[in-house]
């Protein structure tokens, strides 16, 4: 690709269980206006809009991108929607970055959202098909067996998930946009919360949130015109694999490992744990922190839990993971991946506020979706590639 691409604007809504003050159009516009303000641009400066969200069944609005065109200033401009299940926020940003890198557009607005309060995602995630077993279990029911298998495989102590659940909620207290603000979070409160999908406790799961995230991506010529530093896209990759095939490792999926290798190669990262300063990783259930640390090559298989326990991933550790509070603290599903990408950009721009990692220069944003089968990642940096 010929053009360099930079994030020059980031906008987030306040994430909450219910944003009853805003329609879906109002929600996406709140994020988009903040991204434009950050980029010091106006609507007319945007060449195209790329939008993403999770399945339409979540809110019951078919093809919402069509009705959102005017709220997003896209009338008369190219607009397209990306759809890759839970990883969509990440792959949407990547599709937008490709338009810049390919030289098709100079400045692209990319937006992702979910308004979970308007529907029932648990129901939408558990459709009753005639060729499926006579039970439905929601997202937690699918992922809980994998966690039990990971615990067996890695020999991890039982409290690793609790540690992640506490760490990410403490981080969220530093993030004004985070949905959960649990000032009383502690190992005891996590352990005493209901066991929903054994071995996953209530406080080890993500909340159900309303929210939107937006970014303005720019080519190099326009990136230098603003007073705030850009985050340069050093590499981006998307991978997928079937939900079912013989020998599939659902805990350490091949597609995720391949995606990580590709994005590191593009970014010139050879030793991720040393060269990446901070990571925003899609962790909807606490145990996915150690599982994804392994899949992302930050350590050998079965060693991820040690990085959690020795506080490598804490805000003051060698590789802070989810300083924003992560998906465990805010989960507007379709936006959750883009929030990871946007938070990575904020970190290398030095604009992450109270959850800023000191001296962050290179950051990873990660998203996954489906049955751990769709992956999207980017590495962003403070230095122009």
């Amino acid at each position: 690709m010929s053009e360099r691409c930079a994030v020059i604007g980031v906008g987030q809504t306040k994430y909450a269980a219910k944003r009853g003050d805003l329609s879906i159009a109002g929600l996406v516009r709140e994020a988009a206006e903040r991204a434009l303000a950050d980029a010091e641009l106006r609507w007319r400066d945007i060449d195209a809009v790329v939008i993403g969200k999770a399945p339409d069944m979540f809110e019951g609005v078919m093809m919402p991108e069509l009705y959102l065109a005017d709220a997003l200033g896209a009338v008369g401009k190219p607009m397209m929607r990306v759809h890759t299940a839970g990883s969509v926020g990440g792959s949407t940003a990547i599709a937008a970055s490709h338009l810049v890198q390919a030289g098709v557009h100079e400045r692209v607005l990319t937006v992702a959202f979910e308004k979970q309060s308007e529907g029932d995602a648990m129901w939408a995630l558990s459709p009753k098909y005639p060729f499926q077993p006579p039970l439905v279990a929601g997202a937690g029911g699918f992922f809980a067996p994998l966690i039990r298998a990971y615990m067996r495989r890695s020999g991890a102590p039982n409290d690793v998930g609790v540690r992640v659940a506490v760490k990410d909620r403490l981080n969220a207290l530093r993030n004004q946009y985070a949905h959960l603000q649990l000032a009383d979070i502690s190992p005891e409160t996590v352990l005493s919360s209901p066991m929903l999908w054994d071995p996953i406790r209530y406080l080890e799961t993500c909340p159900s949130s309303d929210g939107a995230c937006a970014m303005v991506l720019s080519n190099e010529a326009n990136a230098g015109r603003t007073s705030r530093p850009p985050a340069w896209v050093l590499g981006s990759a998307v991978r997928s694999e079937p939900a079912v095939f013989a020998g599939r490792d659902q805990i350490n999926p091949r597609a995720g490992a391949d995606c990580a290798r590709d994005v590191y190669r593009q970014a010139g990262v050879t030793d991720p744990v040393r060269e990446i300063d901070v990571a925003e990783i899609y962790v909807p259930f606490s145990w996915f922190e150690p599982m994804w640390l392994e899949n992302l090559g930050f350590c050998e298989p079965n060693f991820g839990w040690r990085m959690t326990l020795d506080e490598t991933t804490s805000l003051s550790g060698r590789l802070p993971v989810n300083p924003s509070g992560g998906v465990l603290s805010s989960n507007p599903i379709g936006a959750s991946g883009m929030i990871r990408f946007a938070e990575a950009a904020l970190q290398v721009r030095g604009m992450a506020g109270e959850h800023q990692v000191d001296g962050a220069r290179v950051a990873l944003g990660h998203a996954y979706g489906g049955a751990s089968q769709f992956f999207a990642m980017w590495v962003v940096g403070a230095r122009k590639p």
Partner: protein
Amino acid sequence: MNYAVTRMLAPVRLPFVVTPGEALSRFLSALVEGRLIGERCSECSKVVLPPRGACPTCGIATNPRDNVTVSDGGTVVMFCIVNIPFEGQTIKPPYVYASILLDGADVPLLHLVEVPVDKARMGMRVRAEWAPPTERKPSLEAIRWFVPTGEPDASYEAYKEYA
């Protein structure tokens, strides 16, 4: 006119008609007969079920000759205990939702295991409990649930690549 409309209930009902296709049709018909069939890939020899008409690993098309009957007994390779009630649920929690590797298959099948939840474990040997023939529909609901066989548990080594 001095009130705000803050919420409107808008129910949507979506009855779908699914065309299963040839491979899945054979699988569903066999369920009515109380049999489970998979497809053996002519390239990698792995047995996948439910059949899809192609091997998901090799991309090789399968045909009726590749159908193999798979045992209705197998090993619990992963599971969770569902304690949470939610809309659309057909079984009252708590229940065991398991990934079961049927003998002769190379991918696990997700299904219910009828066992006290504190007795569920990885490696447990189970067998399908079929609905009576007259009540079987062409669906995985033809199997009510899996029940423990009482056999010794499978060793972790025997199934770890599926967990």
